[in-house]
């Protein structure tokens, strides 16, 4: 069966510090991978998606970047965090025509 992992579960970082959030998927090959941010427990904002290794599409210009160094690994990064980067970050995967499966999320607080 397929599983998706995210870490860390929670993170508190100072403004201006770097960020690296990791997402890995098991039990499937060549998935589409997605990063979302959820603010204040409400709507999802799509940040990045990837249809293959090294292929990244950015949906919202911002302070973040994403990379996909391996088929089932998706990394969200920032060189310098802003206060507005605080939120709940969700990774998800899907295959063509099917639903998305979400990871457990990372709660990021920027102070």
């Amino acid at each position, binding site marked *: 069966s397929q599983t998706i992992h995210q870490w860390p579960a929670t993170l508190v970082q100072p403004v201006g510090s770097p960020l690296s959030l990791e997402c890995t998927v098991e039990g499937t090959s060549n998935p589409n991978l997605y990063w979302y941010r959820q603010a204040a427990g409400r*709507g999802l904002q799509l940040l990045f998606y990837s249809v293959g290794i090294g292929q990244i599409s950015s949906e919202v210009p911002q302070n973040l970047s994403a990379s996909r160094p391996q088929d089932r690994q998706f990394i969200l990064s920032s060189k310098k965090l802003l206060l507005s980067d605080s939120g709940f970050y*969700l990774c998800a995967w899907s295959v063509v025509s099917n639903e998305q499966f*979400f990871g457990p999320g990372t*709660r990021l607080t920027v102070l």
Partner: protein
Amino acid sequence: AQSVAQPEDQVNVAEGNPLTVKCTYSVSGNPYLFWYVQYPNRGLQFLLKYITGDNLVKGSYGFEAEFNKSQTSFHLKKPSALVSDSALYFCAVRPLGGQNFVFGPGTRLSVLP
């Protein structure tokens, strides 16, 4: 532009009563439609989907949803609500042939004992 609307921020229902969480969408072509549930500080969990076929779709935990093409709606329903159903519910669409999902803003369901 593609969009999903969930007209109610909050739905309150008494335990044992039927519940409905509304969703309407605007997307070109025939979309795939989904419902997800989110409990506090957790990722979204898939409930059900409509791809094609019967307009009434049954999913997890006794939930079902009805696809109405003429009204471009995909309302989530359950005949008898449980307190444990209290959570945040998201409707989503995926355009045919598209890679991305468009999510609604979410509806908070509170089931009162």
